[in-house]
């Protein structure tokens, strides 16, 4: 808390108080913290919102779209991602992502949160407790792992998915997150990714595509009826994701500030125009505006605007949403049909493509009007603000993420495949994951 908010603007009082605090034995060893109650309160809420995006947001969104026999199994993947992601995050993953000066990977000084006390702050988020910064980032790691599961829904063996969560988090997510947000080489190169266009969406999307190809298509894909079990669950999930995204993008400001507000409004508008665009295109090309199309368009808009949200103006969000709705609609219908990959829940088509497009568009629309800070008074500028060079940095970030995620996921799956078959047996796939992997059936 800032001392000034509690004491009169009296230099003598402030000085005495500061001296008193610094000489208190417990505090003498730590830096004087600049923890803001307002920032902390907001970030606590944002952390809750992003966790809600996973449980139950993504769980519902995904499960509603699979067949009845796989609903619980699909939820299990998101649940497991939460358990494993959380434990491994506080173990070594937080430290390796957000500590140290390494270009490629962080340090281990915060192993099991060692050294994080009541007043400790991270230089990356100086006005909130480091424990909170860690927890907030944990929710991002969790949802990224959970997102990948959507691509292999319906046929991946649960034990293989457990291995996947355990290995993919430290070996694929952590490095990319370190490069982009943990003072790694991409951050130093000036890559702009406000809330995870590369780290979360492109990363999960590419990993999902690779996984879908390595694990293979579902039995009966293209011929059997794979109609969703209950799209109303998916709609509820979308609502939780949308509202949660206020924490995902707004919280990435790491402060309770106008920047967070701008990010939230931009996010909301992109979701709206994303949904409208997909709906319009579908209405035009297929004759009816489906509810699945509406929620897909909304999520496409949300994912695409994610890297741009704290760098652009709200009206840019409207445009980004339109582009997202159009490109992701094309990816999920035309591109998928062309390449014939079985990405069950279109993680690549929505998050992968959306994340890449959004990261690029950040280089187009970034403006100092939103991104100027006391530390960076000139802000971040993109193409429209007269800085076309930013586009190349964005492309570099996209390429790096694509390469590391693609290659890393492929190698890890091959390794896991030696330990345990990636797929369930054909008979189990026909009977469904709920019964065969978990011994449960929706009545």
């Amino acid at each position, binding site marked *: 808390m800032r001392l000034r908010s509690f004491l009169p603007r009296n230099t003598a009082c402030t000085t005495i108080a500061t001296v008193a605090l610094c000489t208190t034995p417990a505090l003498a060893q730590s830096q004087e913290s600049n923890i803001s109650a307002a920032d902390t309160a907001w970030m606590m809420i944002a952390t809750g919102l992003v966790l809600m995006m996973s449980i139950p947001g993504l769980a519902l969104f995904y499960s509603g*779209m699979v067949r009845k026999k796989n609903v619980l199994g699909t939820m299990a993947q998101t649940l497991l991602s939460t358990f494993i992601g959380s434990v491994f995050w506080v173990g070594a993953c937080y430290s390796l992502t957000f500590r140290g000066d390494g270009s490629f990977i962080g340090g281990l000084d915060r192993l099991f949160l060692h050294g994080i006390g009541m007043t400790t702050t991270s230089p990356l988020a100086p006005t909130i407790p480091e424990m909170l910064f860690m927890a907030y980032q944990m929710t991002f790691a969790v949802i990224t792992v959970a997102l990948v599961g959507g691509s292999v829904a319906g046929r991946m063996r649960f034990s293989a998915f457990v291995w996947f969560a355990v290995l993919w988090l430290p070996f694929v997510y952590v490095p990319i997150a370190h490069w982009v947000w943990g003072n790694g080489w991409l951050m130093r190169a000036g890559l702009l990714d406000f809330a995870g266009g590369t780290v979360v969406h492109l990363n999960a999307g590419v990993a999902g595509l690779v996984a879908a190809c390595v694990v293979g298509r579902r039995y009966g894909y293209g011929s059997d*009826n*794979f*109609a*969703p079990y209950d799209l109303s669950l998916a709609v509820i999930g979308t609502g939780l994701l949308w509202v949660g995204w206020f924490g995902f993008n707004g919280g990435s400001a790491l402060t309770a500030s106008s920047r967070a507000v701008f990010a939230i409004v931009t996010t909301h508008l992109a979701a709206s125009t994303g949904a409208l665009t997909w709906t319009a295109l579908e209405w035009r090309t*297929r004759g*009816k505006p*489906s509810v*699945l*199309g509406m929620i*897909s368009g909304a999520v496409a808009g949300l994912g695409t605007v994610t890297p741009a949200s704290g760098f652009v103006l709200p009206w840019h969000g409207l445009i980004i949403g339109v582009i997202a709705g159009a490109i992701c609609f094309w990816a*999920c*219908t*035309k591109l*998928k*049909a062309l390449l014939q990959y079985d990405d069950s829940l*279109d993680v690549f088509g929505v998050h992968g493509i959306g994340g890449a497009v959004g990261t690029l568009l950040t280089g187009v629309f970034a403006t100092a009007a939103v991104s100027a800070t006391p530390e960076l008074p000139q802000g971040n500028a993109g193409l429209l603000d007269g800085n076309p060079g930013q586009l190349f940095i964005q492309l570099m970030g996209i390429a790096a993420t694509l390469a590391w995620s693609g290659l890393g996921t492929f190698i890890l799956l091959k390794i896991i495949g030696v330990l345990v078959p990636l797929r369930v047996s054909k008979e189990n796939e026909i009977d469904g994951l709920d019964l065969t992997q978990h011994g449960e059936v929706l009545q």
Partner: protein
Amino acid sequence: MKLIVAIIKPFKLDAVREALGQVGVQGMTITEVKGYGRQRGHKEIYRGAEYVVNLLPKIRIDVAVDEANADRVIEVIRESAATGQIGDGKIFVTPVEKAMRIRTGETDRDAL
């Protein structure tokens, strides 16, 4: 005794039940079934995937009646279940060898 099996459109169930009640039919078994005849199915579209669903939901009514009432019951079902559109359904009649009321052990006509 005869077992009358009627496949009807689901929304006609209440009308048929009421009509049967008025000719003395006091019990029946209802099952939710799927099927098709001349009525074509519909197309569902989920993102890139299109499914033509040929199986349509119907209601199956099983009712056992005395032979003397069979024709009247069949006529009542037909009148109350018909809409004039394709897909109204079908009625089948099979003989019943034996019937029994579980609670009392009454058989045949006394069990109906």
